């Protein structure tokens, strides 16, 4: 009894790894053997809680986190409750509040979109695939909220003012424009003919021309009305511009918030050692996996990983003993292959430029499928290059002989660069056409290429709409024409080669890149096609269900582990990169390009941006003074200095924490060595002092402990 009592207090201090000098070696050994699951390592029964109510409020939370068996936990809880004889009102309130917040969180989780489906996907395919669907859900919510924003401030006022056909609306003419010589630029006739064949409606839907061109879908339909009625004024051009800017800022904030959560996890885990054996052994098994097939695959996966890692170690040892000549050869090969890759990418860009030029400049006189194909030519070329070039790069990467993790990162970077910059190239070609870079004479009358584009913003919007739509059609087509047949062939055909190729594997990086690309297209296009977020929301919802179906029917779980945590942050970084590209496009269009005379809310301004200075005059004096102050140097320079100081402070705090972590780690190692040293010393001392034999517990000896114990046994 006494021993167990001592045992209890021993285990309470066992966590610190320190034993007082009074306790002999025997007790320590005994305690470590006897302590079983029912030991309570870190809970101090005898402590008296000071601090009254504040300390007690945290305890209900803490009971759950105690690592002890359930019965003991309930006992602890009872003890805590008994210690508070009268539950004060504040205590009761705080408890009720905690319960309420738990229930509220529960209710909120019910409202979360597709919670059950994503849960199921994670169970069968693991965290990597689940992160793709979580990312998809994030984009759906983002697009839907953006659509609500645009609908509230641009679409609904537009509809209201159109239907009311306000004759009191005065087209706002800024004082400085001279429009006398520009009547020819104001002609805009989007509706070609009255009677059209029925199927052209379908073609128009796909290409954004015809009945769709002059509709709420595109920029050209909105008027530059300024409505002033009964003390209520609404300025559509200003609303359009501000909504577009706010939409971008809103998306930026959402991404940053999401990224912050992910980055916090990545930073606290120190970026994760790339392939650490201990992590693979102890955290490699996904406890959520169910099903015989999935678990077998996971076991094979882990075995494969371990074998690959051991092999990599051997190769690394071998390469370290490589000669200088071989290293130089390898690096020159890599440089050459990188040049080849860059050449391929530039070739793709060139193809896109040619296709865009051809598509924009050819007259589309005949209606029909040929016209549709011509309009879709840039999209087709972009999609084709997005399939072909990464495939070739993957084959080239096999020759480069990087380590597997480096190969994956390189492939991802190359694919990102290709996709987003090809979009940039398309836009640059369009822009060059609009500002007639090659033929400067055509731009003189109207300030933009009127000959080709009566309303250039709508054309750009149409191009973005087509890109989005084609991307969607390609995804569905690949699903139907490639993945389902592949599964049917693999399941029904018994050739060895087919079985070896096997079912489709759901690769997360290419799919996520597709999502980022689609989102970037939507961002660049929203200024010219306000309903594009709605189109994208519907598209993403359909893609969710299609991908889910194909995942469960056609795919097998991945053979290579996919580190979801560290890759999540890469996805958000790539999304940010797309956002930056879209913002550049936005700023350029707003500030530099001349809006069309014939259509849109900015038809009489010299640039889209000029609406803001013009409406600035309409504000009250104090607001003007305030805004002038905010924009002046007297405000911005101190702000800049202050943010620099804040940044330096945060960086300094971070480095101090890093240093203290390193210090603690070395301290831990030193303490371990101290413990061993002290143990040896105690052994020597007991030997010297000649502790009698009957004090040495036979149970301890038969435990077969350290070698020196056996020596003692044989000693006497």
């Amino acid at each position, binding site marked *: 009894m006494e021993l167990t009592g001592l045992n209890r207090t021993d285990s309470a201090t066992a*966590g610190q790894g320190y034993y007082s000098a009074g306790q002999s070696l025997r007790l320590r050994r005994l305690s470590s053997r006897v302590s079983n699951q029912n030991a309570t390592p870190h809970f101090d029964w005898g402590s008296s809680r000071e601090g009254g109510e504040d300390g007690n409020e945290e305890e209900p939370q803490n009971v759950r986190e105690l690592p002890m068996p*359930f019965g003991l936990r309930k006992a602890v809880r009872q003890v805590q409750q008994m210690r508070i004889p009268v539950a004060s009102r504040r205590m009761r309130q705080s408890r009720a509040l905690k319960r309420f917040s738990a229930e509220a969180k*529960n209710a909120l989780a019910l409202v979360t979109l597709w919670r059950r489906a994503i849960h199921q996907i994670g169970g069968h395919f693991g965290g990597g695939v689940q992160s793709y669907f979580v990312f998809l859900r994030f984009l759906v919510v983002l697009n839907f909220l953006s659509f609500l924003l645009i609908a509230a401030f641009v679409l609904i006022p537009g509809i209201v003012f159109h239907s009311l056909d306000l004759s009191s609306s005065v087209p706002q003419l800024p004082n400085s424009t001279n429009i006398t010589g520009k009547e020819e630029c104001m002609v805009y006739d989007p509706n070609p003919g009255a009677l059209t064949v029925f199927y052209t409606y379908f073609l128009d839907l796909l290409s954004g021309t015809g009945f769709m061109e002059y509709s709420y879908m595109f920029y050209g339909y909105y008027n530059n009305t300024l409505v002033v009625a009964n003390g209520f004024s609404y300025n559509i051009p200003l609303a359009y511009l501000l909504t577009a800017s706010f939409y971008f800022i809103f998306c930026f904030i959402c991404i940053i918030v999401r990224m912050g959560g992910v980055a916090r996890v990545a930073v606290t885990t120190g970026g994760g050692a790339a392939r650490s054996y201990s992590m693979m052994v102890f955290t490699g098994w996904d406890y959520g996996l169910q099903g015989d097939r999935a678990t077998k695959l996971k076991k094979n996966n882990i075995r494969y990983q371990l074998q690959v890692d*051991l092999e990599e170690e051997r190769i690394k040892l071998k390469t370290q003993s490589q000669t200088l000549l071989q290293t130089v050869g390898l690096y020159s090969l890599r440089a050459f292959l990188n040049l080849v890759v860059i050449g391929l990418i530039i070739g793709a860009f060139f193809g896109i430029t040619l296709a865009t030029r051809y598509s924009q400049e050819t007259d589309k006189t005949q209606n029909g499928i040929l016209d549709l194909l011509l309009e879709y030519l840039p999209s087709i070329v972009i999609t084709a290059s997005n399939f072909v070039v990464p495939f070739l790069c993957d084959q080239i990467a096999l020759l480069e002989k990087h380590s597997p993790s480096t190969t994956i990162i390189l492939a991802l970077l190359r694919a990102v660069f290709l996709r987003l910059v090809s979009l940039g190239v398309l836009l640059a070609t369009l822009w060059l056409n609009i500002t007639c870079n090659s033929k400067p004479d055509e731009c003189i009358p109207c300030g933009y290429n009127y000959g080709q584009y009566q309303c250039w913003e709508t054309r750009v919007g149409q191009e973005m709409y087509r890109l989005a739509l084609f991307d969607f059609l390609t995804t569905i087509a690949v699903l139907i024409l490639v993945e389902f047949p592949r599964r049917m062939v693999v399941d029904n055909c018994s050739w060895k080669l087919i079985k070896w190729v096997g079912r489709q594997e759901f690769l997360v990086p290419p799919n996520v890149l597709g999502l980022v690309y689609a989102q970037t297209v939507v961002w660049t296009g929203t200024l010219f096609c306000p309903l594009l977020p709605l189109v994208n929301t519907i598209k993403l919802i359909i893609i969710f269900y299609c991908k889910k179906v194909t995942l469960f029917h056609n795919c097998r779980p991945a053979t290579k582990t996919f580190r979801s945590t560290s890759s999540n942050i890469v996805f958000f970084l790539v999304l940010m990169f797309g956002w930056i590209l879209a913002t550049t496009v936005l700023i350029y269009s707003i500030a530099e390009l001349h809006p069309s005379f014939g259509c849109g809310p900015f038809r009489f301004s010299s640039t889209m941006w000029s609406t803001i200075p013009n409406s600035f005059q309409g504000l009250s004096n104090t607001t003007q003074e305030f805004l002038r102050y905010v924009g002046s140097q007297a405000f911005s320079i101190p702000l800049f200095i202050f943010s620099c100081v804040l940044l330096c402070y945060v960086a300094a705090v971070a480095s101090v924490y890093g240093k203290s972590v390193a210090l603690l780690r070395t301290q831990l190692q030193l303490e371990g060595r101290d413990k061993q040293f002290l143990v040896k010393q105690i052994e020597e001392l007991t030997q010297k002092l000649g502790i009698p034999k009957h004090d040495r517990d036979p149970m301890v000896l038969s435990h077969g402990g350290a070698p020196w114990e056996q020596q003692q046994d044989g000693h006497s």
Partner: protein
Amino acid sequence: MGNKQTIFTPQQLDAYQDCTFFTRKEILRLYQRYRDLAPQLVPLDYTSKPDVKLPYQLIGSMPELKDNPFRQRIAEVFSEDGEGNMTLDDFLDMFSVLSEMAPRDLKAYYAFKIYDFNNDDFICKSDLENTLTKLTRSELTEDEVRMVSEKVLDEADLDNDGRLSLEDFQHMIVRAPDFLSTFHIRI
């Protein structure tokens, strides 16, 4: 959904809510799962605190645990008698720790216990070899098992005593980004 359930007294439900990470609804749902394993053994009325233990075979046949190579160890760690036979309390405790709301330290403590096959509060080389065998369907050669165990001890053993203590394990878990998402059973 309100207060109409007659399985537990309100005090019992409160205690469960405080001692696990589950809400009221989830506790009742888990009770149903527990009962579905053996409807004739589990009474409908827990207000009298019956002493009912389900044998390990039933627990190990649950779809969430059936294919897990560590299911026996999980049941042994969370059961009162150490043999895998679980009462409702043990059942709730197990799924509470394995749920997504449990904090990292708590999960690390129980993970350590699960991988400690011989229950000596240390993960020694034989425990590691056991773990590896279960993880890879015994398809690694003896040499490879030995090499991997040595590497693991190299990396994680900070006080250099040839085996992993709870502190070593927890220190290593802190650096693992995926631990919270893999040590998680969805029920």
